[in-house]
């Protein structure tokens, strides 16, 4: 079964990182991706640009409404995600715990509503 791990953290802190700190963070994520792939549980990942680059779009009464910025203005922002294959929540949690974001932010774990094997 598919789970998506949404990574939330404070972007301002991330933006303030020195180059060698940034490098260290990148290599940690690299190692995490390698571990997920090696275990055969990796499905997908993305690292998103900061929330200031977000655009919101909706259609109301037939008219398109576009707004600048993310959905919610919160202390932690969505910075990226991982999609993994896991048979149950405990397994998904075991991997979420190894995600670097869990140690400086929050990882939201959401199960997929699409049946086993269904790909997007």
């Amino acid at each position, binding site marked *: 079964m598919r789970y998506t791990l949404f990574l939330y953290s404070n972007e301002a802190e991330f933006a303030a990182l020195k180059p060698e*700190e940034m490098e260290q*963070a990148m*290599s940690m994520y690299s190692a995490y991706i390698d*571990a997920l792939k090696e275990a055969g549980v990796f499905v997908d990942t993305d690292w998103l640009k900061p929330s200031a680059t977000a655009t919101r779009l909706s259609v109301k009464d037939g008219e398109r409404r576009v707004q600048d910025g993310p959905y919610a203005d919160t202390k932690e922002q969505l910075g990226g995600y991982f999609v993994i294959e896991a*048979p149950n929540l405990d397994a998904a949690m075991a991997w979420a715990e*190894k995600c670097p974001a869990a*140690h400086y932010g929050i990882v939201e774990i959401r199960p997929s509503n699409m049946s086993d094997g269904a790909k997007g």
Partner: protein
Amino acid sequence: MTAAALAQLDDGAPPDRRLSLMFVCAHPAIDSSVRTPLMLQTVLGLDASDIATVFLVPSSAMAQRLVRAKRKIKDARIPFDVPDRSVLASRIDDVLEAIYGAHAFERLGRRKGDEDLSDEALFLSDIALRLLPEEPEPLGLGALLSFEAARRSAAIDDDGVLTPISEQDVGQWDEGHLQRGDALLARAHVLRRPGRFQIEAAIQSAHCDRRRTGRTDWPAIVQLYEGLLALAPTVGAAVARAAAVGEAYGAEAGLKALETIDPETAERFQPALATRAHLLSVRGDNTEARRVYDAAIALTTDAPSRRFLEQRRDRLRD
């Protein structure tokens, strides 16, 4: 770091100061998750960035945590002293736990020969046991870490697969570390005050005796686990005991021993699942064993352990 090199280390700083520092780092008011990093930084001078990588935290976050902890020590005026006799035993426990935290942390992507922070843990435990000569548990921890250091090369094979202690090639065990472990354990024994680390070291010692006797004394190990459980009842120890019971008295007995663990806990605890799968396979229930191996594998993020479980599972025929 060899046992001989360890014995020859010249410390520089006055011994008392470093012990006081360790007690400060492991003070109850310090968050337990920062005690180990704090000790590594302040006593051993490790870089916050190196500590951060092992603990899976960005270096900026680790640096921040360390700064906060040190600020707390200053603001709350945590005393820079070896604690009073009356609280020494429990405070020593906190120090030893923090030291063990350096050794026991499972880093992602570990390979054969990886040293991680085991040497640092050994060094810290050596300081503790030399400066607290009347205390048995520092000796116990020192022994435990020595036995584990001795087996480091044999723990993961060339293909990156975990090898259980009872199957390791004793020829790859380091004799220097083993002798140090046995010597420390003997010294602890004389003090006649059993404790968690002494018992865990005794269990390791029993395993390592296989190099002399050619076999593992499983009934002795069962007894030692029972002693450990009486002192520090944990699910981990209960599972390990059940595994030893299985080896000593047969799969049926082992499976029964596993049943003493609350089923809801057991089905989410990776070691319990791995042990159960193995015992089921010994009993010949291969289909069920494979299902339980799958459940264990799903919870296993450590690659060498996972490969080991996959290997065991794939060997089973219906």
